[in-house]
C-alpha cells in the first residue's frame, strides 16, 4: 500500500469520526435536555435556596422570565440548541459566570489529577498484569489477582477516606483539602505545593484504576504465552521472562493502551468521587455542586463536555490502532475498524 492512499484512509477516518461525534453530541444533548426539563426541582427555588421564603411570587416570576423559563419546553429546547451550536453554553447560576469558562477553569485543575492518576495506573497496572500473566498461578499471580479483584469491588471514595485518615490526619504528611494552600490563588501556588496537594487524590484514583488494566493485561499475556510463536521461542531455549518482555510485550501493549484510553469515562467518574473526598476544586466537584444546587446550564454543559471527553479517549484508542498496528493498515487501509 503506498503512502498516498494511507493518507486518504486517515482523512476519511477522521471525517467519519467527526460526523459520529456530532451525531452523538446531538443525541446526548436532546436526551439530557428532556431529562433536565422533566425534573420536579424548580430551578428558581434551587437557585435561591434557603432564601426561598423571602422571594415573593412576583420576584420568582421575574427570575423565571429572565431565564426564559416561562416559555414552552420545545421552544426552550430549540433556542438552547441554537445557542449551543453557536458555542454559547449560557451562564452558570451558582458561579454567575459563563458555563464554558467555569468548565475550562475547573477542568484544568482536574486535568492534572486525572493525567497523573491515569499514567500511574496505566504503567503499574500493565507491569503487574504482565508479571501475573508470565508467572501464572504462582504466589505473585495470586496476590496480584486478589488485589485487582478487591479493588474492583471497593468504592473509590472509601479508599480516599482511608488514605486521608492515614496520611493526612494521623501522619500529617499531606494536606487535608484543596488543590493549593488556603489563602493563595491558583497562580500564586508553586509547582511543588500543587503537586503536594495533588499526590494523595491521584494515588487514590490510580489505586482503583489499576484493577481493570491489570486483569486485562494478565489474560492477554497468558494467551500470548500459549501462542505458537511463544512455544517456538521456548523450544529454542528462551526463558519465560525473555519471551514475555521480548516477544509478547508488543502484542499485549496495544490492547492495553487501547483499554486505558477507552477507560476515560471511569476515570472521570472516579475523579468526581475522589475530588469530593479530598475537597479538590476540579470539574468533578463542580458536577456535584451543579447537580445538588440545580444549576441546569452548568450541568448540561458538563454532560456534553464529558461526552466529548470520553469520545476523545475512544477516538485516541482507534487512532493508535490505525497508526501503530501494521495489520490494520495493510488490510483495512484506514477504514473504520
Amino acid at each position, binding site marked *: 500500500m503506498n503512502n498516498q492512499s494511507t493518507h486518504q484512509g486517515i482523512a476519511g477516518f477522521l471525517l467519519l469520526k467527526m460526523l459520529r461525534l456530532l451525531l452523538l453530541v446531538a443525541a446526548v444533548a436532546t436526551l439530557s435536555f428532556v431529562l433536565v426539563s422533566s425534573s420536579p426541582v424548580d430551578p428558581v427555588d434551587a437557585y435561591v435556596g434557603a432564601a426561598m421564603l423571602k422571594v415573593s411570587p412576583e420576584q420568582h416570576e421575574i427570575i423565571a422570565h429572565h431565564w426564559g423559563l416561562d416559555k414552552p419546553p420545545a421552544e426552550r429546547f430549540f433556542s438552547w440548541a441554537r445557542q449551543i451550536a453557536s458555542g454559547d453554553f449560557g451562564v452558570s447560576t451558582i458561579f454567575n459566570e459563563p458555563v464554558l469558562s467555569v468548565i475550562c477553569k475547573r477542568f484544568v485543575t482536574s486535568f492534572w489529577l486525572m493525567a497523573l492518576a491515569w499514567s500511574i495506573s496505566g504503567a503499574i497496572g500493565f507491569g503487574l498484569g504482565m508479571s501475573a500473566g508470565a508467572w501464572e498461578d504462582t504466589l505473585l499471580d495470586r496476590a496480584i489477582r486478589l488485589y485487582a*479483584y478487591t479493588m474492583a*469491588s471497593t468504592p*473509590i471514595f472509601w479508599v480516599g*477516606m482511608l488514605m486521608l485518615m492515614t496520611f493526612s490526619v494521623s501522619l500529617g504528611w499531606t494536606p487535608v483539602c484543596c488543590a493549593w494552600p488556603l489563602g493563595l490563588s491558583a497562580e500564586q501556588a508553586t509547582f511543588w505545593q500543587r503537586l503536594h496537594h495533588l499526590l494523595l487524590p491521584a494515588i487514590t484514583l490510580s489505586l482503583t484504576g489499576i484493577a481493570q488494566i491489570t486483569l486485562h493485561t494478565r489474560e492477554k499475556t497468558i494467551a500470548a504465552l500459549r501462542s505458537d510463536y511463544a512455544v517456538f521461542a521456548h523450544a529454542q531455549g528462551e526463558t519465560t521472562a525473555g519471551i514475555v518482555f521480548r516477544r509478547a510485550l508488543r502484542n499485549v501493549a496495544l490492547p492495553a493502551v487501547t483499554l486505558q484510553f477507552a477507560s476515560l469515562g471511569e476515570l472521570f467518574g472516579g475523579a468526581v468521587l475522589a475530588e469530593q473526598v479530598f475537597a479538590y476544586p476540579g470539574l468533578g466537584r463542580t458536577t456535584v455542586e451543579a447537580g445538588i444546587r440545580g444549576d441546569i446550564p452548568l450541568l448540561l454543559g458538563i454532560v456534553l463536555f464529558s461526552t466529548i471527553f470520553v469520545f476523545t479517549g475512544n477516538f485516541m484508542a482507534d487512532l493508535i490502532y490505525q497508526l501503530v498496528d501494521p495489520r490494520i493498515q495493510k488490510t483495512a487501509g484506514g477504514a473504520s475498524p
Partner: protein
Amino acid sequence: MTCSRLFDRRTRTLLVIIGCLLFFFVVFLGAWLYGRQGEVTNLTLRKISPGWGQPFGTDWLGRDMFARTLQGLRLSLGIGLLAATCSAIIALILGLAAATLGKTVDVVITWLADAGMATPHLVLLILISFACGGGAKGIIIAVAASHWPALTRVIRAEVMQLRTSDYVRLSRRLGKKPVWIARHHLLPHVVPQFLVGLLLLFPHAILHAAGLTFLGFGMSPHIPEIGTLLSESMRYLSSGMWWLAVAPGLTLVVSVMAFDLLGNNVRALLDPKTMRE
C-alpha cells in the same frame, strides 16, 4: 488454586450461591431484628471505639454503629438488587426488540445505547437522579436507567445470531408473529446471558448507588444507607473516629466482593469454554 482441586466448578459455584443467599438472609434478618437499635441515641455511650459490647463502636450520639451498618447494608443491597433487576429486564426487552422488530427499532435502540454509554456513568447518574428530584426513587431509577446498554448489546448480538438459525426461519415461514417467535424461540436461549448479566450488574449497582448517596443525592441523612453513613463520617475523620468509616466501608467491600464472586462463578459455569474446569 487449592480450592479448585478440592471441588469442581459446579460444587464451588453451588457453595458460593449458598453462601451469598445465607449472607443476604443474615443481613435482612439482622437488620429487621437488631436494626432498630441503631436509632437509639445513648449519650452516656458516645464515641466508643470498637470492642466487645459494640463491635463497630458508637457514633457521636451514642448510636450503635453495628446496627446502623446492618440497616445501611440492607438498604444498599435492596436498592442494588432492585435497580440491577430493572436494568437487566430493560436490557432483555430492548435487546430482544432490537433484534426482532425490524431495522427502524434496531437503529433507534442502538442509538439510545450508544448515547447511554457515551457519557461517564457517574455524570449520567447525577443527571438522572437530578431529573427524578433525588430520593431513593431517584437513585433506583438512575442506576436502572444507566446500566442497561452493555447487556442490551450482548443480548442483541446473541439474538442476531439465533435469528438466522433453521428453526427460527421455519417458524417465520409458518407465519408466526415476531413477538411470538421472540417469546417462544429466542427468549429461552438468552436466559443464561440474562442471568449472568443480572448477577454481574448487581455489584456495580450497589457501588454506584452508594457513590450517589455519598455525594449527597437522594437519601435523607436520617436513613442510614452505607453511602450516607460514610459521608457523615467524613465530618469526624479529623477527630480520630476512624471506626465510623472503616467498619461500614469494609462491610460494603466484602459484600460487593461476595456477589462479584458469585457472578463470575456462574458465568464460568455457564460458559462452555470454561465449564469443565
